[in-house]
């Protein structure tokens, strides 16, 4: 009798534990399911502000292109356009940070693929305009284009940050752009071929000089100053 009672008590504990565990698993499953739904909704909510920023930047860039085509190579327009390029550079950097954060979740709404492509085109246009200003305004600015892959590249992220810092320290006379490869954009393929991009990160200064591999901040400054030594960062 005692043996049976003992067994019954043991079974009661086991059943009770299993029930608690099952209820807990069910609650966790519900919470995770809801979190994915919330995450997806949050990702959708982020689409519109990013697209708006891209459109705003596109408009700013177009007005700069217009200004450059009307009155390029003038002592009045060059500083104006350079200042505009500096602002767009900052905004591009902000959009990139926002997009990277927004893309960290799963699952992502389908709009994100087209946002990545839109941003890539914006960066290309920016690079083309800055190269034009570089040519038109007597080499008072310098451009840099960094290629990074769509897979993990820790040094690319690091070099991207360094470029932003050098740009800021040069008072936006050094204008870097970064471009992601593997986005199925013909223009990017063409550039990869032209500059023979095989490793990442690769930096192209002033559309001419190709430097492969990771560069430290001082190496970036050295390379930038090699081709334009009147920038404020070259003095120190």
């Amino acid at each position, binding site marked *: 009798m005692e043996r049976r009672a003992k067994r019954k008590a043991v079974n009661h504990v086991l059943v009770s*534990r299993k029930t608690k565990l099952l209820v807990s698993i069910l609650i966790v499953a519900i919470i995770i399911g809801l979190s994915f739904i919330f995450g997806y909704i949050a990702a959708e909510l982020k689409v519109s502000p990013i697209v708006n920023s891209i459109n705003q930047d596109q408009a700013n860039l177009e007005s700069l292109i217009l200004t450059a085509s009307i009155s390029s190579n003038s002592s009045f327009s060059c500083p104006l356009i350079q200042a505009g390029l500096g602002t767009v550079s900052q905004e591009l950097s*902000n959009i990139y940070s926002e997009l990277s954060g927004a893309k960290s979740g799963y699952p992502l709404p389908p709009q994100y693929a087209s946002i990545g492509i839109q941003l890539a085109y914006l960066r290309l246009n920016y690079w083309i305009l800055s190269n034009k200003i570089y040519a038109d305004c007597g080499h008072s600015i310098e451009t840099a284009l960094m290629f990074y892959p769509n897979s993990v590249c820790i040094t690319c992220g690091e070099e991207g940050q360094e470029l932003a810092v050098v740009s800021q320290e040069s008072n936006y006379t050094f204008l870097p752009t970064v471009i992601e490869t593997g986005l199925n954009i013909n223009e990017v393929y063409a550039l990869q071929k032209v500059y023979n991009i095989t490793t990442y990160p690769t930096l192209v200064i002033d559309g001419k000089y190709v430097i492969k591999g990771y560069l430290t901040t001082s190496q970036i400054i050295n390379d930038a100053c090699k081709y334009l030594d009147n920038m404020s960062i070259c003095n120190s």
Partner: protein
Amino acid sequence: MDVFDSVLSYVLMSMLLLTVIFWLIVYFETFDSESNKIKIKNYPKVAVVIPTLFEGKFLRNSVDSVLNSNYPKGKYNIYIGLNERTDKLTRKTAYSFKNRNITVVDTHLNGKSRVMNYVIKNKLKDEKFILSLDADSVIDKNLINKLVIPFFEKKSVGIVAPSMLIYKPKKPLEMIQKYEYLFNIALRKGLSMLSTLLVAPGPGSLINRKALEKAGYYDENNITEDMELTMRMLIHGYRIENRLDAISYTLPPKTIPALMKQRFRWYSGSFFNMIKYRKQLVVKREDENIDRGTISLILISSGLSLLALPLLGYYIYLYLSKLIFQLSQVGLKFTLSYQSFVNFLFSFNELSFIGIITVIIAIYSMFYILKNINKKVSIVKDGFWSMIFILIYGYLLAIAWTAGFLNSLRLINKSNGTKS
């Protein structure tokens, strides 16, 4: 690596959430599980055994707390066991009670468990239960009355453990330990509900004398004899129960080295006993009061927790190396701008939701435990000390935990060497 990191994050977060919810459900039941309906007409006789060493005048507080107990007079006897190393002041304090029907036993033996065994085997009268009490601990006046209840409620109860609290905490280190003890009370109760309580602490546990005799008394060579006895009782088929409303108080270590020394001994003993009894605890036998599934989980998680310290070191190394790399390349760029806030909002994803929900449930559980044990909660004070306990103190204990494990391996080797 990205996919691996993501999967690892989801798995870890889900497991953490599962653990938090599971324990909250256990606690919902735990705090309502104790009944006081049983009216005991004939209280059993209890022997209060107090082994001594260097407790000095504090022994008086321990004995007085028993003498002031609500347990019927004449139903308990007090035995003070003197160790051969017990100092003069403690001896003097012990002998000062001689006129008050307290038996002082000079065992001329060294070691707490030897003293306990000597007193139990040679001096006890017809007491059915033994209350083990350290000489640096005191008991609440209702402790014995509450501890006897489970012996009348359930069959084959071997030991009933009390809720142990810190005696008058004042200094920060004592306050942190206060919260550690509070959370341990809840954990101990939860584990006893799941039939997996592996330690009934020395200060204030009530032991069934027959069960103790059957199990074979205290192991005289074990550094955590209370845990060893608890495990042996479980293996012998006895239940280990816990009463939340039976409270004992103990003096905490007052310095960090003393605390680390105490924890080193506890954790060495814990791992030693877990390794020693691993087979008996995990292998299934009929009609036992052990939930082997949970025991296996406890053993596995104890083993896995040893990875915590090396992992923490690894992450600190990764973080610092990245920080040093950034500082050397980009310099110190601390920007707390509007854009930083925007970037933070944009990086909010489903893992953030899971994290926030987990933290909310964990904080709720924490206050739920404190409210049920302390009966009142101060969100600021309790929140502050609980956070200090959880966020800082744990790392300190992890060092003692890891060192204790390594020492337990040495002890196992030593004990195997002695056997052969």
